[in-house]
């Protein structure tokens, strides 16, 4: 008979993967689909979690209101992030600047700098310790499914991630906004020439992506019961890896790869020491890239 232990590890891996996927969706929309190098997504995630926490400790509203609050902060943060760290670099439209490598990578540093400032400010305001979330808000009541134990949060996260994924896929492939986003990512100048308001499209993408990041942040805060300024770092790296492994521009690809990462980590814990389990995940990434140099679900490379 199949050892229920492996089933339990598989379930844990899936739930871990879902938490990565939750972060990866918004990240992929901005970084992968819009094709903008953004290193500040982890801080949006943290901001969302802190916004939820502040709301909870201030007024103790129902959980839906907490998430709505986090979404609002996420939208605001995404908007400001775009205005502060990305918009200024679109002032150069001459060909030399567009082709310059330094210009293309400048948002890497501006978003990194913004993320440093945000994280340090959070540390000064809230302190860098873990803050606890009141227990009645936590979404980690155990649920037994056959031989496997999960928690309520796993189902909520699954539901939210699925809704985000389906919603985004619909948005990107079936609506004019989505078409505009893909056009801007493909060729910003061309998009402008055919009458797309590129500025607005980029802002919309940032707002939507950051709302998802903030929602992921507060859900993770409620799931693990701890909120702290550095919480966005590890999921940020995992989301980045999942996005690239999935082929950069494919959101379903990122989600699937996030799940693969989660499962490979939990399964690896069975065979090697927990300290080495990340090694398996990264090894898996390298192998994937060797055999699929454009990611698992990436489009073939286009000529620029």
């Amino acid at each position, binding site marked *: 008979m199949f050892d229920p232990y492996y089933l339990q590890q598989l379930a844990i891996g899936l739930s871990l993967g879902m938490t990565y996927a939750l972060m990866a969706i918004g990240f992929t929309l901005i970084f992968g689909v819009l094709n903008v190098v953004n290193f500040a997504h982890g801080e949006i995630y943290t901001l969302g979690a802190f916004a939820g926490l502040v709301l909870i400790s201030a007024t103790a509203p129902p959980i839906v209101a907490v998430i709505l609050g986090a979404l609002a902060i996420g939208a605001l943060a995404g908007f400001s992030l775009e205005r502060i760290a990305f918009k200024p670099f679109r002032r150069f439209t001459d060909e030399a600047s567009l082709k310059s490598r330094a*210009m293309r990578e400048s948002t890497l540093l501006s978003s990194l700098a913004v993320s440093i400032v945000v994280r340090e400010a959070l540390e000064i305001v809230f302190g860098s310790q873990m803050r606890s979330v009141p227990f009645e808000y936590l979404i980690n009541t155990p649920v037994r499914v056959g031989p496997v134990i999960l928690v309520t949060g796993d189902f909520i996260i699954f539901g939210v991630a699925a809704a985000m994924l389906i919603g985004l896929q619909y948005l990107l492939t079936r609506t004019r906004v989505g078409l505009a986003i893909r056009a801007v990512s493909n060729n910003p100048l061309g998009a402008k020439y055919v009458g797309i308001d590129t500025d607005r499209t980029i802002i919309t993408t940032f707002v939507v992506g950051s709302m998802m990041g903030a929602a992921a942040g507060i859900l993770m805060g409620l799931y693990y019961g701890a909120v702290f300024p550095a919480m966005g770092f590890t999921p940020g790296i995992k989301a980045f890896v999942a996005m690239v492994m999935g082929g950069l521009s494919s959101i379903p690809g990122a989600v699937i790869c996030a799940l693969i990462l989660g499962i490979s980590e939990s399964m690896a814990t069975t065979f090697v020491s927990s300290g080495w389990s990340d090694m398996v995940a990264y090894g898996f990434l390298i192998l994937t890239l060797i055999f699929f*140099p454009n990611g698992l679900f990436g489009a073939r490379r286009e000529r620029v």
Partner: protein
Amino acid sequence: MNAFETAAPADGLSRRRGLLVPALILLLVFAALPALLAGFDKGYFYQIANLALIFVLLSASMHLVTGVAGLLHLGHAAFYGVGAYTAALLTSKLGLGFTVTLPLSGLVAALVAFLVALPTMRLVSIYFAVATLAIGQMLYLVMLNWVDFTKGPNGVIVSKGFELFGVSLSGRLAAYYTVATVVTLSVIAIGRLSHSYYGNALRSIREDDQCADAMGVSTVRLKMEAFTLSAFFAGVAGGLWAHMTGYISPGDFKFSESILILAMVVVGGLGSLPGAVIGALLLILLPEGLRALGDFRNIMVGLVMFLSILLLPKGLLGEVSALRLVRQQLGAAWRTTGPANGKGEGIGWR
């Protein structure tokens, strides 16, 4: 290239003037700064000077792969770590001295880089970046978790300071001169590599690798060479750090250090070697200088980084101005060897 040849005067006087800036820099590094340091006689200033120089080397080595060859490298600190661990383990296990460990730390880092590069160098753009991230993290995990060999989180005590063939160089001034000499020689080597036809071939990969490939540039081989060379210099920096502090642990080489080095290269200006040097100096000196601000100093570091990239998006000293500077000041080799007749006899730096 003809523009440069005609722009640069060819008479002996200007050739001598052409060496003014490098001579000034050398004078600053080897005479003025040590004199100043000796005048203050503060271990703190020596420490900062040495640390800044080590990061100048790290930043310059990353410049080669990220700035010139245009490959976003997110795991550079790991090779720095491999170098440091090589020096530390050779010293603590075999009792070897700095003279032997320094070249070996570079070579081992280069060897590791070569091995991991073999399967991954065909990757392009962000796929390459994430592969280097994975490689860096894997090397970090090895340093942390392979307790029997690296002593894991316990770190390694390096009992020997700087020396040259048994002659101790561990006095303050001697240590400074050791670091300064190694770093200066390495930066000159990196400069020769990046301001040459070789550097231009690397730049062609950055600008358009498919086009470069079609023109007969062996992009994969060049990428491997750049990656390995850059790891070599990072390893040398690691060897310097290990012997300088006397104790290393895996925490010194984690992901955030890679990001710090990357930030140095970008702040300074991607593709510009003087920029990489300035970026390293800025990001090492600034946090120390801002100690008076207490808990707010890191916010200030972030703000300065942000302002610098906002005001100077191509870096503090961008590639174009850096190239102009280098070619004007070190331009002898770019000029024709015979009479300046515009026939294009320039030999360039090969």
